[in-house]
């Protein structure tokens, strides 16, 4: 029995389609449409917005300042995604090739932080990275060790350790985003690697390729769909991240979501905020379109 035509059983179709369709229209399509209409409006008073069909908000969004923030958000998200990929790939491989007994536990180990509140995780990282936190203490100890080793071999000791600023800068934002997005990357990578035909890896090793070359030339190309999925699933939320740059970033590490928030909460410029929101949504659409384009090319060829 293939898919049923909706006319064949109208009553059942209505029962399973109406609740969700009505909900989606009332509480998703309509709110998004309001934002879209407002993005063509202008402030006509303190609490009044006149939807005049103006493109001024979009024009303002292409000013150097806002384009710069968009560009920077992309750069940060891309850097976060790349770091997650490099850090997460060996982890996904380790889970794939772990014994039956260990695999579920390793997966759970990756997923548990993912289920822990984002705010709590960000805050926990802030304690660790703080001026007197353990990250700084650890670095200080390493520095001390290096200094001691240098004295031991007869060189001048290093200058005394100065705590470094690990919070409220761009580094902190990237670090924090990698911390919260790592599970997003590992899980799709694992799903792709798990489906891999292992005899291909064995063949490559038998034919004399080293492990590194096998991974680079055999495993990575075969796992490409999973890598693309992992990249998308990390890049998209990282691009729209609000909380991490807000809490861990400094004044110069704001991302696009922070700028949108400010238009609504402080600047009270709803039309401009709406325009920025929709530009962000369009950016997501472009990313997804690029991904599906990439997927279709090998099929056609």
């Amino acid at each position, binding site marked *: *029995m*293939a*898919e*049923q*035509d*909706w006319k064949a*059983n109208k009553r059942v179709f209505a029962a*399973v*389609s109406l*609740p*969700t369709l009505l909900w*989606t229209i009332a*509480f998703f*399509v*309509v*709110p998004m449409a*309001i*934002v879209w209409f407002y993005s063509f409006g202008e402030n006509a008073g303190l609490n009044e917005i006149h939807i005049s069909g103006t493109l001024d908000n979009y024009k303002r969004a292409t000013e150097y300042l806002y384009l710069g923030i968009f560009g920077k958000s992309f750069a940060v998200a891309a850097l976060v995604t790349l770091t997650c990929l490099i850090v997460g790939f*060996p*982890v996904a*491989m*380790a889970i794939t090739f772990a*014994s039956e*007994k*260990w*695999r*579920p536990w390793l*997966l*759970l*180990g990756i997923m*548990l*932080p993912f*289920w*822990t*509140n*984002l*705010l*709590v*995780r960000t*805050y*926990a990282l802030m*304690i*660790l990275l703080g001026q*007197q936190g353990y990250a700084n203490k650890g670095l200080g100890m390493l520095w001390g060790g290096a200094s001691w080793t240098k004295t031991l071999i007869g060189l001048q000791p290093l200058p005394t350790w100065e705590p470094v600023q690990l919070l409220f800068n761009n580094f902190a934002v990237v670090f924090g985003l990698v*911390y919260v997005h*790592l599970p997003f990357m590992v899980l799709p990578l694992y799903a792709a690697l798990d489906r891999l035909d292992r005899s291909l890896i*064995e063949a490559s*090793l038998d034919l004399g390729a080293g*492990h590194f070359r096998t991974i680079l030339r055999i495993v990575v190309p075969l796992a490409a769909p999973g890598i693309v999925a992992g990249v998308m699933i990390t890049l998209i*939320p990282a691009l729209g991240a*609000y909380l991490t740059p807000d809490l861990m970033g400094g004044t110069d590490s704001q991302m696009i*979501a922070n700028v*949108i*928030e400010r238009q*609504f909460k402080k600047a009270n410029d709803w039309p401009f*905020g*709406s325009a920025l*929101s929709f530009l*962000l949504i369009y950016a997501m659409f472009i990313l*997804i379109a690029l991904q599906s384009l990439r997927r279709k090319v090998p099929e056609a060829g």
Partner: protein
Amino acid sequence: MAFFSRTPIAPLEYSRTLWMRLWVGAVMAFLYAPLVVLMIFSFNDSKRNVVWRGFTLKYYDKALHDDALIEALVNSLTIAALATIVSLILGAVAAVMLWRFRFPFKGAVDGTISLPIIVPEICMGVAFLMFFAKLQWSTDLIWPLNLSAITIAHITFCFPFVTMVVRSRLASFNREQEEAAKDLGAGEWQMFRDVLIPHMRPALVAGALLSFTLSLDDFVITYFTSGPDTVTFPVKVYSMLRFSVTPEVNAASTILIILTVALTAIALKLQGLKAIAETH
């Protein structure tokens, strides 16, 4: 599996090589160290967070007697429970619709339903802010009606995840079972209840777990949707963090971490470790 195993490592046993173990160990340390430090310092008898001054439970006592904090936690749990129930129903029927029927504009309907997954939280947040402002939705109703706006927003971003999980489960359903049930005289409803729902059950549990955690986790959308008097746990913790970092935040966060672990343990008991690992 002993750490220093005597048997030689086979070529494909990547997870037994030393560098892999070190890598995984380092990543796990990276993931868990902040949480462990946070939990340890929630017992620290010091106003400043970083220096250990001895063991105390006084911040738990303070947190548990902080009415605003408790109210926020109760709000969060109520919203999460309500959002989970409605999301399960909406998500499951949507999955059945997309799986069973062929209808005009199916692609568009499918796309619109899954859109909340990819639209950034901040954009959904401002959309709900404007929507409820436009409707002049009242926020000073009696509990739990004052949570209605937040709950509606949470359902909107939770149920597509349920649809996604249930749909992938339905793909493995043998449609002949449905025909067999009908041949044996089952009505639509009976078939749905006795054949389809049991088949969907693991996905429903996974979907419920996903909705509950997504709702409990959400800060951004709630931040825009909540009125001045309806505060959820993440929003409360955020304001505590912004305005006065006290060790109470550590205690409150630890309570939430323990809650998450407990929920996970219950889910594991219900489903088994393997099923959980497979559904995600």
